[in-house]
């Protein structure tokens, strides 16, 4: 497992790391965005999406209600899912979640850590932790052999 840790990030820095992460993701990568309500999971997903070439003019919004939002980027499809409202892992099958896990698209999932037994082997975990109202700690734990986490770099 590769792990990177970034301390006391501002909103802008978190966005920058999300964009960099996007540029390093191998095809079909699956990301679990972990952290409490208000820790910045959707914010990180916005950075990922725009980093994958989704135009700035398209809002990447919370999928809590819709469960799975899909976006078409310049070269990539991007799926943004949220399992917050699910009660049991059987429901992942019901909403067609595993098709996305196996597919070639980039998949970023909020509240996947409720069902850690369903993680694929090459999961990339992004763990956000609120330090203060305006700063977050961010940890990236990657089980993906081709994700070059070491190239993430805050200037």
């Amino acid at each position, binding site marked *: 497992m590769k792990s990177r840790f970034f301390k006391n990030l501002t909103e802008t820095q978190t966005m920058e790391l999300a964009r960099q992460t996007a540029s390093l993701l191998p095809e079909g990568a699956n990301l679990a965005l972990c952290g409490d309500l*208000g820790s910045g999971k959707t914010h990180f997903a916005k950075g990922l999406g725009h980093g994958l070439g989704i135009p700035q*003019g*398209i809002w990447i919004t919370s999928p809590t*209600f*819709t*469960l799975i939002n899909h976006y078409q980027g310049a070269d990539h499809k991007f799926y943004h899912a949220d399992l*917050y*409202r*699910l009660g049991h892992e059987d429901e992942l099958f*019901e909403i067609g979640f595993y098709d996305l896990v196996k597919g070639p698209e980039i998949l970023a999932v909020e509240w996947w850590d409720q069902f850690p037994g369903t993680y694929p082997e090459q999961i990339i975990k992004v763990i956000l932790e609120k330090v203060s109202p305006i700063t977050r700690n961010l940890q990236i734990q990657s089980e993906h052999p081709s994700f070059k986490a070491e190239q993430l770099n805050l200037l």
Partner: protein
Amino acid sequence: MKILGIETSCDETAAAVVEDGKYILSNIISSQIDVHSIYGGVVPEIASRHHLNSLLPVIEQAIAPVGGIEGIDAVAVTNGPGLIGSLLVGVQGAKTLSWISGKKLVAVNHLEAHLKAPFIGWKNNPPPEYQLPQLSLLVSGGHTILYYVQKEKVEILGATRDDAAGEAFDKVAKMTGLGYPGGPVIEKYSKKGNPEAFRLPRALHKKGGYDFSFSGLKTAVMNLIENLGVEAADSIHDIAASFQMAAVDSLLEKVQLALENHEVELLVVAGGVAANSLLRGKVIELAEKYGVAAVLPPKILCTDNAAMVAAKGYELAKDKNFSSYDLNAFSSSFFTKRGGLLNKKGR
């Protein structure tokens, strides 16, 4: 013309018959809130299973007053946006019903249907007259959109950049341990609270145009609860009231900005959050200030229902905008900064 409407996009399995897009002949909603309250949210698998169980009884009840399926002229169904599994139950049911009865099939966009809800009523309680141009705010668990509706042109002025307003109510209710659904419980607790007890952030700054944002407000409530610690429980009414006021203010600030810059005859508010009494009262005040008429649907038509689907279906059927049996459901719509709506209609 009598249209049967079918709606299964989220919590509710609903069917209704509406005459000429205006008069409700039946409006049946099988609410699943009780099942979901156990889990603190909508549970999709349970939702689709309940739609399966409820759909036929709900349709039978809806068409009984018009003498069964022979009494209707077309079947309208919501095919998106919403939860794909839930939508498919309604779409498949509508297709089957259309095929066996020979009645035409009409696909309805859930969001467009909500805009029709304020203009449906009953023969003994007729709806307000449809007038243009309209400023229309759609606020629900999944959507927060401000429309400017002119003759033959619907323009999206703004939408949420992150969370929907209704989602913020649900998440704040969950954080404060008040339960589900968030709207009614927050409103109930707010009644005994001071809305000025805590200062919470309002709308996006001017550069945000007509767009909304509720993620910052949600996080601010979270920070407030953390700061209060054990005392949060004693301040639960004040937290609810302060949040509710901030959420309503955030919505109205953009509505007011739009009223300043547009010629408007009617100010319309629809969607589940339009059932909130504080919002309703403030919308009426604001409309008076700008000399426009406010239209707020009765609460039963604010939340998801099939009468609005039938009403929108009537408009489409009148223009012979029918669907074929390869009709599919779609889950999301995306909004662009310039106000374009990109979605797959699947009509």
